[in-house]
């Protein structure tokens, strides 16, 4: 699948481990920058830089609440990543659905063996 190789690409935005950490933290709910700085253990300018990249691809949104800036996750921007992984996930879903049948047979056989004894 073709993918844009720019910083305005959601794939690139989440390729950085710290940015994924930020997204994980925001998945629990809206947070002010200070919270993120504390939880991630980076200096504020670095956290702000990561937040800027995430904002550029629309992965996070910001609003002002008095003197605080609150960040929150914007799920739909991450949909391309979800879609990309989906074909692969379907392969494993189909594979494991087959495995369910094999396991059901094994369970039945085991019970049969116990009954024979």
């Amino acid at each position, binding site marked *: 699948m073709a993918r844009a190789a720019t910083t305005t690409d959601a794939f690139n935005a989440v390729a950085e481990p710290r940015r994924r950490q930020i997204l994980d933290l925001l998945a629990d709910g809206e947070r002010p920058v200070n919270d993120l700085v504390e939880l991630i253990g980076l200096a504020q300018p670095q956290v702000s830089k990561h937040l800027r990249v995430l904002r550029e691809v629309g992965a996070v949104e910001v609003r002002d609440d008095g003197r605080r800036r609150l960040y929150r996750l914007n799920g739909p921007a991450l949909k391309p990543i979800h879609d990309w992984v989906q*074909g692969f996930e379907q392969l494993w879903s189909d594979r494991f659905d*087959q*495995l*369910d049948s094999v396991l059901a047979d094994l369970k039945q056989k085991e019970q049969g063996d116990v009954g024979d004894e």
Partner: protein
Amino acid sequence: MSVTSENRANVSLPADDQILITREFDAPRELVFKAYTTPELVRRWWHANRGDITLCEIDLRVGGGWRYVMTARGGFEVGFHGEYREIVPNERIVSTEVFEGMPDAPALDTLTLTESDGRTTLSLLVQHSSRENRDAHINSGMEDGLQDAMELLEGVAVSLR
């Protein structure tokens, strides 16, 4: 599909060079381990309804090899092989995995089985050597899906003749 299951495989990307596949099974982990490591049983599920398994070899010991080959419905052959690095029966298998279409990009797979109340959670962590290789691996899944779609289309086309 003979078994209806609410258990869906979940795929996540914990790091740039990793894929994590998880799934819950309604069976104790001894049985999952058995189904995962016995060639006759692997032949029954690994195809994922995408073709016929033509070869399934498992030499389950550290340093031993495994190889699975499938002829996909489109007629092309896909092969995977690797070597077992660590085996803890019913709990954990670490092995290498090489997709034979991309022989220079081996991955390291860690299979972990945990059981709770007779149900087993399977987790398969695929560690690639780079983001590019990881991405190519995921793209190969996309191609499978595409292949399925093409075959469905072909089936429809044939039925219209």
